[in-house]
């Protein structure tokens, strides 16, 4: 079932909300060290997939293996190797940025002797060091996104699962986050990136999966997806629109 290089494996994953199938028999193999883009229209099942991959939701059927650990049996061990920016963007508004990261560092078992250093380094990395003593309630949306990314990195994860990490950021903020993700990927971090921004995905991702109505309708590099779509204009936007339309679904 699992290749040696696959760091995230989802086999036949399904999840329903009542009668509606949010994720339908989804199979994914993400290789170690890649940036995998996960695209889909609104309500296609992207967030549910991330929640299933992180163990926040339990699948109706199927299994998830993260870094050779079965999620259903080793959730705590899996939590130690993943960093997540979830769709829920809640923060403890009364906490200062350093307190917030220290709290999560404690939950992830970061040792006291390196904790302060780790928190400062992450705040520097996401450009929030100058605001380290400010309470989160005073932060803009962009600053909260950066702090969320710092939190996702607090346990020095091997895998990052990001649900719209640049949502609400200005172009400079988006560029900064993209550069940081490239840098982390260069250091060996595998990234699973769910995004609406097609240019962000085409800039960053080595492979792309497209989900529509809970089903994975296509998976591959942009070139491979272009061949599947059989279009003259092979921009990611055209490919995406084709593959998520009914005709595309039928063809693929």
């Amino acid at each position, binding site marked *: 079932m699992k290749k040696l290089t696959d760091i995230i494996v989802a086999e036949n994953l399904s999840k329903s909300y*009542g009668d509606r199938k949010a994720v339908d028999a989804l199979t994914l193999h993400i290789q170690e060290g890649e940036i995998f883009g996960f695209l889909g229209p609104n309500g296609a099942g992207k967030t549910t997939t991330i929640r299933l991959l992180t163990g926040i939701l339990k699948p109706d059927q199927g299994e998830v293996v993260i870094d050779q650990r079965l999620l259903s049996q080793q959730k705590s061990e899996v939590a130690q190797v993943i960093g997540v920016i*979830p769709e829920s963007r*809640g923060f403890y508004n009364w906490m200062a940025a350093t307190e917030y990261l220290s709290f999560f560092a404690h939950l*992830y078992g970061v040792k006291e002797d390196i904790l302060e250093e780790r928190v400062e380094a992450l705040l520097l990395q996401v450009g929030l060091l100058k605001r380290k003593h400010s309470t989160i309630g005073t932060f803009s949306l962009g600053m909260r996104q950066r702090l969320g990314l710092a939190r996702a990195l607090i346990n020095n994860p091997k895998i990052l699962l990001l649900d719209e990490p640049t949502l609400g950021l200005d172009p400079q903020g988006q560029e900064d986050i993209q550069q940081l993700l490239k840098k982390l990927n260069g250091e060996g971090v595998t990234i699973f990136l769910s995004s609406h921004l097609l240019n962000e995905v085409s800039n960053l991702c080595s492979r792309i999966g497209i989900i529509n109505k809970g089903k994975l309708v296509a998976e591959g590099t942009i070139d491979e997806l272009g061949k599947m779509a059989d279009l003259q204009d092979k921009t990611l936007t055209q490919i995406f629109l084709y593959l998520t339309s009914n005709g595309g679904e039928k063809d693929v």
Partner: protein
Amino acid sequence: MEVKKMFKYIWKKELQGELYTWKSMLWLVITSLLFSFTSYLLLTDRELSLLDQTELMLLLSQIIIVVAFLIITIDASSIITAEFENETAETIFLAPLSIKDFLLGKFLASLTLWGLLFIVSFPYIIVASSGSHLTTAFIGYTALLGTLGIIGVVAFIFAISLLLRSTKNTLTTSLITLLVLATPALFSTTLKNNALSQLFSQIDPIDNIFSSLDNVLVDYQTSLLQNWRFILSLVMFCVLMLMFLVFATRKFNEQGVIKND
């Protein structure tokens, strides 16, 4: 990386949150004002000032228990549900944190608030029992019975919080339940002769606390043996509520952090 005793970080976070947002401080100020107002009435009101010292101590102990139950019910009703309503639950459960540690941390925070409320009531207890040989019993029994009652009530509220995941619904359910539990304590002596109300009184935690305090402060039956029936009933209440919490935790684990609506 070392992952153990995570509950202490949840506990610390809750205490910081209560202090930073002035929530606990507000409760302590309200408690002080209530106790001061009660003391003023006991000293100045024509009829109340004629109460025996034992009756006065009983009244004060009952007021301490009722105020603490009310404040802790209101406070505990949002301590878990706020994590869902403010969308912080997902990030917290993405960490390698067990639901047991999560609940224990929150539980200790609620018990800490009870401890603080009890400390605020301390000067009033000392003044009310001044010159009486019952000071130690007054303090000891209020602490013991109050703690047992609070453990049961908080376990019930946490269970409801995990099942409903809404502050408004949890608070409403908890306050109605508290009112139902307080009802036998308000029964007149004639009504208490009724077999059904007697049975209700025997299993009701608030009535048992009040009966035990009456036994200690008015009838001078201060030993634990003389109060075992009330204490056993309270322990049973705690065990039942903790079992309900275990059931709610299992339900929560089945449903997942994000409920399928």
